[in-house]
């Protein structure tokens, strides 16, 4: 069974601080995605990483896919209150379109 574990589970920081969220698995994934979900809404895709070692930047967010394609990280620089939300990593199950989601990291950024 492919599982994605995220850490930390909760993160509470002040505006301006940096943070990193981790997504780990014992299984290899062909790609990993990061979603952000706000209360009362569905998850929204932030990025897809496909190649081992790949780094993608989205403004203040930096995403990295591990060399072995078993893990990924999301780094946020100078967090803002608008970054508050539930961050989810997800990857496709073997040979299917089904997405397996990570356990989630709830981020709260205080002014």
């Amino acid at each position, binding site marked *: 069974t492919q599982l994605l574990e995220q850490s930390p589970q909760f993160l509470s920081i002040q505006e301006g601080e940096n943070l990193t969220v981790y997504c780990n698995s014992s299984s290899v994934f062909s790609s990993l995605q990061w979603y952000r979900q706000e209360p009362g809404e*569905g998850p929204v895709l932030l990025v897809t990483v496909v190649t081992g070692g790949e780094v993608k930047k989205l403004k203040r967010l930096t995403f990295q896919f591990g060399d072995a394609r078993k893990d990924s990280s999301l780094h946020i620089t100078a967090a803002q209150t608008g970054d508050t939300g539930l961050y989810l990593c997800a990857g496709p199950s073997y040979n299917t379109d089904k997405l*397996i989601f990570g356990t989630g990291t709830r981020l709260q950024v205080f002014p």
Partner: protein
Amino acid sequence: GAGVSQSPRYKVAKRGQDVALRCDPISGHVSLFWYQQALGQGPEFLTYFQNEAQLDKSGLPSDRFFAERPEGSVSTLKIQRTQQEDSAVYLCASSFPEGERLNTEAFFGQGTRLTVV
């Protein structure tokens, strides 16, 4: 439509009542997924359709849960004899424009929050 639409947004059911949750996927999307999400947790897979074919229902927690997509577009998730542990947000997602398979980006609806009392 422009996005995935789910209805109702909120549903309160008495224990033992049957409920039906509807999902209108993005037009032309071949794949449709149902997920169950507990508060603060990641979505848990329930079932998956490719067009009208239900390819995977391994995540359905019991035989009280049933999903269909008879014409390959709109889908309904039905829960019979609801129990309190069924209380959760039920998310629907669609992906893969027809004739194209570039990635596995899933577009989610806003979800239906089911509360069983």
